[in-house]
């Protein structure tokens, strides 16, 4: 079955350092989505990437979709304490109506 893998599982950074999480799918994806879950909260949609090689930016966050549409990355520049949380990537299952397959997430811990 479809698998979505994320690395690293945990990442400790000093505030102000950069952070990157990587996502790999066992199958080609029509799109990839990223979500952020704050401690104690629920996942919140950040962005969707659709095109091969697509790069999107949201302030200090840069999202990239691989050329083969099987991998993606999220890069945060100059982390802040508000960036703490777990970042998940997710890809559509089968025809799309069947929901999303999520990676296990990368837990970002920031030390002030």
């Amino acid at each position, binding site marked *: 079955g479809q698998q979505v893998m994320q690395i690293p599982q945990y990442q400790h950074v000093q505030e102000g350092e950069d952070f990157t999480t990587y996502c790999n799918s066992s199958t080609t994806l029509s799109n990839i989505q990223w979500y952020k879950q704050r401690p104690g909260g629920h996942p919140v949609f950040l962005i969707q990437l659709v095109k091969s090689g697509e790069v999107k930016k949201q302030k200090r966050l840069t999202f990239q979709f691989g050329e083969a549409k099987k991998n993606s990355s999220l890069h945060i520049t100059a982390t802040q304490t508000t960036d703490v949380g777990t970042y998940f990537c*997710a890809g559509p299952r089968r025809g799309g109506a069947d929901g999303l397959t999520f*990676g296990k997430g990368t837990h970002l811990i920031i030390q002030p």
Partner: protein
Amino acid sequence: SQTIHQWPATLVQPVGSPLSLECTVEGTSNPNLYWYRQAAGRGLQLLFYSIGIDQISSEVPQNLSASRPQDRQFILSSKKLLLSDSGFYLCAWSVRTPGPSMAFGSGTRLTVV
């Protein structure tokens, strides 16, 4: 605007007791609805999804069941809870054609003791 409501926020239940978690969506019609479970510190596991009233698909064999008695209502149930049912249960929806994203409810933190 569309909103999703999920309750209760937290629940502590003894082993063997029944369970009923409810989720409702407002501001949209014919949504695809989903129940996910998140074990402590882990990823999101899809439990059930529904594309319409009384149309439920189960993804993993387990001690749980789901029902959709109304278009915007999704219920997660169990007749007898197990310790392994503990976790964070999240209801979510996406628009039918095909949705750009999934919106989650605030979740129910279930502890079976």
